[in-house]
Every structure is written in structure tokens, then in C-alpha cells.
């Protein structure tokens, strides 16, 4: 029998009822009795894609480093800098950070 993974891909991609993860996460933060929370929970219970997305979000927020990852994460973190050069957004006073580009990105074409 022939193999065609497109059917599997379709089954595991987000469906028409799936919300973007920020909307889904916000709805899951509503009180348990709220309409938004109940609708989100009902959808998530039957949707592998959204359950996976929520699990990954929770992993990111928890930020729990496993023992075999610690050295690498410490090393990477030690090389990270919050971008430091900003210019002030004159209209509205909203900060508009415009950091220096790192060397690797400066060398890329626009």
C-alpha cells in the first residue's frame, strides 16, 4: 500500500477551531467557571495540537533545566546580552527598542 504522509500531517496540524497559542493561553487563565475557560478546556481535551502547544508553553515558562542541559544552558546564557541601544520613540512615549544587530546578522543581506 502506498505511503502518503499528507494525511497524517493534516490530522496533526491545527484545525479551524484551534486558537493561536496566546489566545488559547489567555482563555485558559480565565476562572474555571467562565465561558472562555470552559470552551478552551473542551477544545483542548479533544485536540492533540493544542495540548502539545500548551505543554510546550508551560515547559518554556517553567524553564526547568535538566541535569544534562545545565552546562550548555549556562554557557549560552553567559553569552546573551539584552540588546542595549535604543532610541526613544518620540510619538506617544512608548519605548521602541532598536538594538544593535549582532555580527552574524549584520552580515546577512537585508
Amino acid at each position, binding site marked *: 500500500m502506498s505511503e502518503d504522509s499528507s494525511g497524517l500531517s493534516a490530522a496533526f496540524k*491545527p484545525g479551524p477551531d484551534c486558537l493561536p497559542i*496566546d489566545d488559547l*493561553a489567555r482563555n485558559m487563565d480565565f476562572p474555571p467557571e467562565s465561558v472562555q475557560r470552559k470552551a478552551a478546556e473542551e477544545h483542548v481535551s479533544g485536540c492533540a495540537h493544542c495540548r502539545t502547544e500548551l505543554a510546550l508553553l508551560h515547559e518554556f515558562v517553567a524553564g526547568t533545566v535538566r541535569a544534562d542541559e545545565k552546562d550548555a544552558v549556562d554557557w549560552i*546564557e553567559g553569552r546573551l*546580552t539584552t540588546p*542595549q541601544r535604543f532610541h526613544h*520613540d518620540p510619538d506617544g512615549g512608548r519605548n521602541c527598542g532598536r538594538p544593535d544587530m549582532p555580527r552574524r546578522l549584520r552580515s546577512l543581506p537585508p
Partner: protein
Amino acid sequence: VDEQTDEELLGEARASSDPGLQREWLNRLFSRYHSRIALWCYRVTGERESAADLAQEVLIKAFQNLDTFRGDAKFSTWLYTITRNHCFNDAHRRVAQREHSMDPLDFDMPTSDRFDVRLEQDQELGQMRNMLQDNLDETEQRVMTLHYGEEMPLDSITRLLGLSNPSGAKAHIVSARRKLKTAVGRWRAIQARRGPA
């Protein structure tokens, strides 16, 4: 400062007209996430140097798009979305650039585990979703979602989900496909007995 929420720190930065103070508030805010971004990028790439580059790019992208954060969602969710999308796009690009690139969905699956999963109609898609829900365990569903739905490489999935079995995500895919093959076969046999609609 440590007791202030992310959104409060961002509010302080936005309210300040002093670039130095803005920098200070934002530095405090983003520093909270350096480790989490580093961890995520490392799990996707599995390699320190490229993960460090990727993490720095995520920070830059977040800064450049800070105006788009409206406070509708939590700051952590907003930053996660940027991190996730940037890392997933980078993983797709790396797969595409491999010299002997394989279709990431077409790894060396044993012939006996292959089956026809072409779906003819939306009804079949719904049926397939029900089958995977009913037949696969939670880990298998997550692995299949990331591999077939998001086209993520197997090694990245293994690290993202913290799979500690020797062959990582691949074993879960093989197991899931065997279960689905059985379920699809059962369903198609029932359909055949019912005859054409």
C-alpha cells in the same frame, strides 16, 4: 523589582522618557528570560554555538517587536510565541539546507509499518483525529504533532519533550504508526462492509 510582574516592568519602561531608565527596566525584564530562551534554543538545535546565536536573534526580534505587545496575553506567552516561531523556522531552514536532505516526514520507516493515510474527504480527517485521540498515548500524540504537524526534526523533538528512551522520538513514532495502522485498517474494513455511501 523582583516582585514586580513582567507587565509592570514593561509599563515602567514605556512610561519613562529617560532612555537610560528604559534600558534598565527592559534589561531587568528580559534578563528574567535569558535562561529560558537559552534552554529552548538549545533543545531545538542541540548545539551550543548555534543555540547562542539563535537565542540572541530571539532577543533582538522581541525587542524589535515590543510595540506589538498589547498586554492581551501574558508577557511570558508573548515571548514564548516569538521564541517558538523563530526556533521552529530555524529548524525548518536547517532541515532544508542539509546536503542529503531527507523529507523530514519520511525517515526509515520499516515497510511493514507503512500504510495508506491519504484522506479523501474532511470526514476522513475528522475520523483520523478521533482515531489518534482514541489510540495514541499522550506522548505519542505530542511527538506526532511536532513531527507531522510542525515538521520538526526527531532529535529536536526528543530534547523538547525530554524523552529519555534510547531512540527518543523515533520509537514513539513507530509505535504510534503501528497503532494507527491497525485502527485505520479496522475502520476501512467497516467502511468496506457498509459499501459505498
